[in-house]
């Protein structure tokens, strides 16, 4: 059993942390947050040049040909620095959908631009009536003679949809779920850009007979499931980075903030609660590892367990993120609620991350429905 990062991954983690500490500090992030687009295209270019955007894209499409293990390292580092650029939307969800589901031609056409930092992608899957269910969208696809396809429907909560050049859209044709590629500037595409509470961009998008291409020819259900599982595993890694930074900052604050003539951290009431948060962070780290192993496992039959293991991980992460984000603000007092101080920004990111593809309730219900993690045993009472 080897649960540690290998040398290459450790190197990636430390190089990236160093880079982010100097190039993506609170002040620089603040500037990006306040800019019109809410992202820095220069930073994105840098990330691309560092090979981060196409990290898990095969080399023949311009990527680095690595695995989700490395993606998780990046996500965790980005979580620690609260990176605003659409890594999850483009490099994880979007790139993965194309790598897993796209035809050779589509991969050739889109992935090199993604890896070079020129093209943004977004997965358009949620709808006004869908809540967190993705399997049966109301959006429809219609094929015409000659192989052309059009998409009609409305999507919301499209992460990174504000800047996307291509949407990967879920739609139903003849009762079957499909994935479709739609160019953002195609006729019949209208979007309303929004900012999430955490500052990341999103959009609502309307497709009105918009010209589209079917993504590859495989089973869209399987592709979507894997894209979401991997997306969740990336969210989990990112959340661990954000939680770790929050707790470190909170512990530091407990040591330095003085009230009643002593550091507030001298109060056992706060020490014990901070210790509980530490225990939760350890859980979160463990489940980040568990979900990473689940999405990278090449063992026979691993696919069957992948979804189950990722949602089990996410249930634990949601709990840790809730407690760490709420308690970090509480233990900071008023300053924790200000835009000027970083702790509230972490709370915002964590609050959004835990509700991006699902929430604690939807996951718990789903895990229970698929039978949980432990096989029941008939008690042998004899």
């Amino acid at each position, binding site marked *: 059993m080897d649960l540690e990062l290998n040398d290459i991954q450790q190197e990636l983690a430390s190089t990236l942390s160093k880079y982010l500490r100097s190039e993506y500090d609170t002040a620089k992030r603040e500037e990006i947050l306040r800019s019109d687009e809410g992202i820095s295209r220069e930073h994105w270019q840098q990330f691309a040049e560092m090979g981060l955007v196409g990290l898990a894209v095969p080399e023949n499409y311009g990527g680095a040909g690595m695995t989700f293990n490395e993606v998780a390292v990046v996500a965790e580092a980005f979580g620690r620095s609260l990176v605003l650029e659409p890594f999850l939307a483009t490099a994880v969800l979007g790139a993965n959908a194309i790598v897993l589901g796209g035809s050779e031609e589509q991969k050739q056409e889109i992935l090199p631009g993604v890896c070079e930092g020129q093209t943004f992608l977004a997965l358009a899957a*949620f709808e006004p009536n869908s809540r967190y269910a993705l399997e049966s969208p109301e959006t429809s696809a219609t094929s015409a003679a000659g192989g052309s396809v059009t998409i009609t429907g409305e999507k919301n909560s499209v992460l990174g949809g504000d800047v996307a050049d291509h949407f990967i859209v879920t739609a139903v044709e003849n009762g079957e779920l499909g994935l479709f590629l739609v160019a953002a500037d195609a006729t019949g595409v209208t979007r*309303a850009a929004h900012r999430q509470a955490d500052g990341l961009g999103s959009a609502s998008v309307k497709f009105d007979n918009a010209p589209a291409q079917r993504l590859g020819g495989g089973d869209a259900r399987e592709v979507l499931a894997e894209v979401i599982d991997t997306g969740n595993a990336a969210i989990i890694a990112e959340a661990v980075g954000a939680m770790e930074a929050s707790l470190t900052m909170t512990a530091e604050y407990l040591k330095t903030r003085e009230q009643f003539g002593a550091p507030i951290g001298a109060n056992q009431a706060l020490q014990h609660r901070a210790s509980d948060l530490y225990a939760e962070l350890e859980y979160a780290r463990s489940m980040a590892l568990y979900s990473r192993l689940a999405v990278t496992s090449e063992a026979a039959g691993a696919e069957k367990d992948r979804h189950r293991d990722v949602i089990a991980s996410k249930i634990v992460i949601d709990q840790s993120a809730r407690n760490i984000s709420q308690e970090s603000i509480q233990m900071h007092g008023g300053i924790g609620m200000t835009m000027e101080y970083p702790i509230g920004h972490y709370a915002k990111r964590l609050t959004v991350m835990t*509700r991006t593809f699902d929430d604690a309730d939807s996951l718990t219900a789903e895990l229970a429905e698929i039978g949980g993690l432990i096989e029941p045993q008939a008690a042998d009472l004899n």
Partner: protein
Amino acid sequence: MDTLLNAEEREFAQQMRQFYRTEIPEELRFKVATGQELTKDDMVTSQRILNQHGYAVPNWPVEWGGQDWTPVQRHIWLEEMQLACVPQPLPFNVSMVGPVIATFGSQEIKERFLPATANIDIWWSQGFSEPNAGSDLASLKTTAVRDGDKYIVNGQKTWTTLGQYGDWIFNLVRTDSTVKKQAGISFLLIDMKSPGVTVRPIQLIDGGHEVNEVFFDNVEVPVENLVGEENKGWTYAKFLLGNERTGIARIGSSKVNLARAKAYAAVTKTARGTLLDDPLFSARLTRIEAELTALEMTQLRILSTQAAGSDKPDPRSSVLKLKGSQLQEDISELLVDVLGPQGLDFVSDRVQGEGLSDLPLGAVDALPAYFNTRKVTIYGGSSEVQRGIISKALLGL
């Protein structure tokens, strides 16, 4: 609650219910009911109507516009006001500075300020907290140095809620730094238009501007603006904070917010029906409802013993603050979870335009309110401070 009331109290509740629903403009109540932000004018309008009918400051002495009500009646007044979604009178005026002036102020200061305070002709701000005096309020450093017939005030206050609208600020200031910290504090009223007063906004993570920093740079304040005696300010502040704590459980508002979450959940579709039918969601909701009932009964139990005579601040009100604030936070989180993926954006309008459908009910306010509501376990004596009071005053630890 109605079943617990006697015939007169029920009649009184009915009367308040009727009054709020007929006299306070529907448009204002709708804003509160749907979580919209109130403007300064909205708040002033509401308080003036209440004041015209004697309902703005019932907790004050009768001669200054108060009502000779029992604690139960006062509770009904507030609870029904919250249930009717009436914008509440400004707490800084009616529950904080008003009672302090009425109890400890000179006749001149009462005449000068109380009528204008009740009618919100003066908008008051609370100048207690400082960057280094939060939970440990008594360590405050803003100084007021006597110079003939005036004080010269220097220092900084922070977290001043709605200070951007403030006409006057009631400040705790240090007038003697040679004695024990609690013994050198005075309660001083300062005109915010005085030269040397600067108000700077603080942005909060809910995206709003609710609090401010207030700086005092050689501000001249006439000595007649001192309330009560010099160096007795800590006594007045404790009196004020004790008053603040009782209304702070916000049970009526919590009921309204919970009802709102429930109504929205009933129209939120899920794969299996509506969110209200979802077993996990409804279990969580139901537990909160039961707990809210427990909070209300606790409040009524405390009130009924007060009605029986004791007028001293009851340390059990810390239980109300501790539990009531936690419930407010839980309910705000519940509403966020009703919205699901559509509640994650900060938007200023449900209407998206361009042929896109409107965002669901609550999409504008649920998440900002969740972040804003973090304050309720921090201010008015944080949850940790309340636990400290409970363990000392009630458990003797």
